[in-house]
């Protein structure tokens, strides 16, 4: 702190989207909480898959679809838990900045603001997708020998099976982005996490109670369009005879329809978040 030499080697420095992406990448992985979230997702995905594989005792002989369905369940059993981790992480990516004041550094470096939000979405979404996918691939490979011991032989050439695995990773990534959007709107960690988990967990439960009490078909159909139900279709195995829950008139979305509904949720929330980010004082 003695000599003053402020001259440096930054005459060509310039704001670029590639730079903003890199910045968000550094931010995501320089926090312990992020690394822990991903470690937990990987551990739980493999752990629950292996647990299912070892405790599985299918009665009788399964047809091809039945076997594929079980193999898929082993790979995606953890999604229900991983979505909570992904949601918390997604919210924290932005609310952590508001809580600590980091957002002011972010927005002075990227004063047009939206590129910073887009970079956050891309980095979080892609990372969550890749980490979840890798965790599920490991789970598939680890559980395959165990499953074949009980008469379940996963067919890796089955596109419905592969799409469902990709769908599960995509679902976790979209849930993270959805929570990021909610976090950007709420700008508070506790509020952001509560709102995101409320939408993903609590609203469906309330609706289910409503359906249970009133037997209202409309409530059931509304439920099908909530983020968790619609997104859940992304990793459902739909080839062959797979039992569909619900009454005959109930709406059951195809996987691609479910994906579109979830994407619509994400887009609407992101538009709101973007408008607010542009307009509000930081």
């Amino acid at each position, binding site marked *: 702190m003695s000599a003053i030499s402020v001259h440096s080697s*930054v005459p060509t420095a310039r704001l670029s989207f590639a730079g903003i992406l890199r910045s968000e990448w*550094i931010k995501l992985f320089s926090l312990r909480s992020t690394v822990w979230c991903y470690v937990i997702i990987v551990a739980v995905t493999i752990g629950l898959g292996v647990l299912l594989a070892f405790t599985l005792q299918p009665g009788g002989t399964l047809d091809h679809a039945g076997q594929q369905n079980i193999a898929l369940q082993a790979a995606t059993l953890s999604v229900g838990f991983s979505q909570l981790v992904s949601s918390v992480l997604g919210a924290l990516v932005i609310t952590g900045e508001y809580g600590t*004041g980091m957002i*002011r550094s972010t927005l002075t470096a990227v*004063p047009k603001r939206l590129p910073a939000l887009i970079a956050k979405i891309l980095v979080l979404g892609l990372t969550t997708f890749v980490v979840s996918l890798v965790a599920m691939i490991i789970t598939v490979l680890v559980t395959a020998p165990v499953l074949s011991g009980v008469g379940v032989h996963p067919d890796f050439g089955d596109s419905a099976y592969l799409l469902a695995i990709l769908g599960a990773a995509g679902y976790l990534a979209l849930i993270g982005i959805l929570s990021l959007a909610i976090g950007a709107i709420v700008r508070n960690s506790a509020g952001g996490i509560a709102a995101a988990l409320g939408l993903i967990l609590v609203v469906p439960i309330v609706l289910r109670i409503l359906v249970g009490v009133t037997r209202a078909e409309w409530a059931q159909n509304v439920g099908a369009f909530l983020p968790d139900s619609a997104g859940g279709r992304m990793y459902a195995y739909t080839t062959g005879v797979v039992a569909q829950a619900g009454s005959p008139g109930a709406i059951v979305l195809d996987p691609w329809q479910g994906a579109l509904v979830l994407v619509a949720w994400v887009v609407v929330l992101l538009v709101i978040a973007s408008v607010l980010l542009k307009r509000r004082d930081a």
Partner: protein
Amino acid sequence: MIEARELSKRYGAKTAVDGVTFTVRPGIVTGFLGPNGAGKSTTMRLIVGLDRPSTGSVTVNGKHYAEHHAPLREVGVLLDAKAMHTGRSAFNHLLAVGATHGIGRKRVHEVIALTGLESVARKRVGGFSLGMGQRLGIAAALLGDPATLILDEPVNGLDPEGVVWVRNLVKHLAGEGRTVFLSSHLMSEMAQTADHIIVLGRGRVIADAPVGDIVAMSTGTAVRVRTPDAVRFAQLLSTPEVTVTSTEVDLLEVNGLTAPRIGELAASAGVVLHELTPAAGSLEDAYMALTQDEVEYHAGGLANEEVVR
């Protein structure tokens, strides 16, 4: 160069900045002085676009801050509140901020060395003292080697060595032709650092002048006169325009006459003088005089007075 034109910011019913117009020129240190709540921090946030002006505009080197292709090279800013994630190390914080502009490790190491943070660079910011946080904030402001520096209360929390360092740093940066704009509520600090001063009170510019002029605005530039013949000399000096007060037997404080004029009068009357000192008005006095009606949060008694008024 920072140019604010009729800049205003209202938060609901409260007006934080009320139509200020000023220019911060390059090559000198411009001090931004005012009591707490005067609108200094808000003005600085408006300059870098963190807050949107209610009316008016502010530009940096001719453009709105957000319109620059390399904002961090135009303006380095240290805000009063910490602007860093507590869970990240100082090094990673600087690396992440610099990355947006393609500023790499080499420059990050440079600013860490420059601000004396080498020993704590890998530690998480959450454990930093106020002073270390300030140094990290200054390091971040210097990352882009900016043409303009905006520092909100930069010496806040620094040890005496750090205060001297900041003072030398800003003078050095201004000497290189950069625009340096720093706020403080410490008049004494400004007197030693700034070349030009803008005084803000309740969101309005109440003075905008070189340091010397601000000091000269200080009312009642008194002259201390020590003489064994105090009583006679006091009578001699007294006219309706001149006030003479005495706090000691041989000491007079004269208002309304310059020191040379008092010396001449003493010589012509044959009065022996032991001391003749023009008491230069301090910046502190000038500041108090300027802001006495503008302080938003008076201490107890004064607040009541204001209500009566």
